[in-house]
């Protein structure tokens, strides 16, 4: 997995719960880092529900190969934001990826080893909800690369936070876990305001 050696920082976006805004946050974090002058790679390991191509308006694009491996699909002309997702490998956008764990693991390992990220400053990894094959494979594969940490996303209600508690256990390889307060980003802050009550969650909900 030599290509990961040239990546300076790896951040994994996690949530036990689905639909809390992982992909949205992954994209916004990437764009924020890009605005700060960094080169970014985004790896979408949600194989069943890849949202990143849509969010960057890259649907229908193909993956190209070079001598070093697979080239990410670039969002911008300067090639400062590169994306890799199974979405680019599907012939039909409605095609379901109905794979069991071993096949998903093989694909993720290939993404991690074969994509030529070049010298990105940050690799942001968007994951599906849960604590299963994708997460285990990513964590195991990144062990030698000292990922910076994971950002756990949640929404304020208890059933989402309950999922967070489990997610914390999946990051043994990450040195720090950061809890993002939802009000930091537009969509989730609206959720918080519209909850209507004065539930005094800071939004992180995780001690």
């Amino acid at each position, binding site marked *: 997995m030599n290509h990961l050696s040239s990546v300076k920082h790896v951040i994994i976006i996690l949530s036990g719960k689905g*639909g809390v805004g992982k992909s949205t946050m992954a994209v916004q974090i990437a764009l924020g880092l890009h605005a700060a002058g960094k080169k970014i790679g985004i790896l979408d390991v949600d194989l069943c*529900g890849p949202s990143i191509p*849509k969010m960057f308006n890259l649907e229908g694009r193909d993956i190209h190969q070079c001598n070093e491996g697979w080239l990410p699909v670039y969002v911008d002309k300067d090639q400062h934001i590169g994306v890799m997702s199974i979405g680019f490998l599907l012939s039909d*956008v409605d095609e379901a990826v*109905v794979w069991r764990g071993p096949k*998903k693991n093989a694909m993720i390992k290939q993404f991690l080893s074969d994509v030529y990220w070049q010298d990105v400053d940050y690799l942001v990894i968007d994951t599906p909800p849960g604590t*299963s094959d994708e997460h285990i494979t990513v964590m195991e594969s990144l062990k030698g690369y000292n990922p910076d940490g994971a950002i756990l996303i949640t929404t304020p209600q208890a059933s989402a936070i*309950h999922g967070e508690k489990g*997610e914390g256990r999946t990051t043994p390889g990450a040195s720090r876990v950061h809890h993002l307060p939802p009000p930091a980003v537009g969509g989730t802050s609206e959720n918080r305001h519209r909850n*209507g009550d004065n539930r005094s969650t800071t939004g992180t909900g995780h001690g």
Partner: protein
Amino acid sequence: MSAVPENAPEHCPGTNSEAAGKAEACAGCPNQSICSALPKGPDPAVEEIRQKLSNVKHKILVLSGKGGVGKSTFTSHLAHAIAEDPQKQVGVLDVDICGPSMPRMLGTEGETVHQSGSGWSPVYVRDNLAMMSVGFLLGSLSDAVIWRGAKKSGLIKQFLRDVDWDDLDYLIVDTPPGTSDEHLSLVQMLTGGNYGNGSGIDGAVIVTTPQQVALIDVRKEINFCRKTDVKIIGVAENMGEFVCPACQKPSTIFPRTTGGAEKMCEELGETFIGGLPLDPRIARSCDEGKSFLEEVPDSPAVKAFRAIVEKVIGFCEKKGGAKDNDTGEVMMDTA
């Protein structure tokens, strides 16, 4: 979908065949050693499950490609709504192994599962509503189930084979988002991998939210159902309009940039069974383990939800009532 995988060599005998791993066509196949080592023929658990669930009149799956759209909320309240009729026996099976929400939503967090001679006893929410979830098997609420797919499939098989539901009118299955191990195992266990059999699952309700990013995943789920011959009862669109309790002004939190679920159903030839508004009191009821049908009966969501429930029951009862037991043929009134 058959037992011959899509990327199998030409003339693959099928992974379940007696010749699997041993036929000429198997030479060079990366799966050869696995196929030759595994036991052949259909999984005996399939027949055991069929017998165990033979007293369950209707089985409904609640699916969505996308997470966080309200599958568990929908499942719990569909169960509550049907169970309002004391004559109906309802079961809820939570196969979201990594993120089991049903114990919290049905107010049974902290309960444990007991074993009896006839299998695992489900946990009773009320007299005529029982449930099973991996949540009851965890030592603490914060325990994470960090399992690969094969282990999750094993537990699902156990849930289907060993839970002693007794007689049920409806078994409603809550699933995790996606189209992976849990979904494949569920469908294969209930239909014997004999897609098109039609006797295992009455149908699936697919839940979505209005925005395009959700619909993209939901289209994949519809695709999954078509590949596995699971009939789609219909698509329900959750979190549509939000009505402010202070000023009563409606807002659309998740814009229907591509026409929402209704337009998608039109395009794909599926049934749109209704929309539900975004009412914060629903989330609160779920967090507290209560039914919003009882807690906030004045909510516009309740009326909308009951209309959806009627369509779901109507679909199942129509299908079940006309079934010819000898040939397995189903005569359906075309709407």
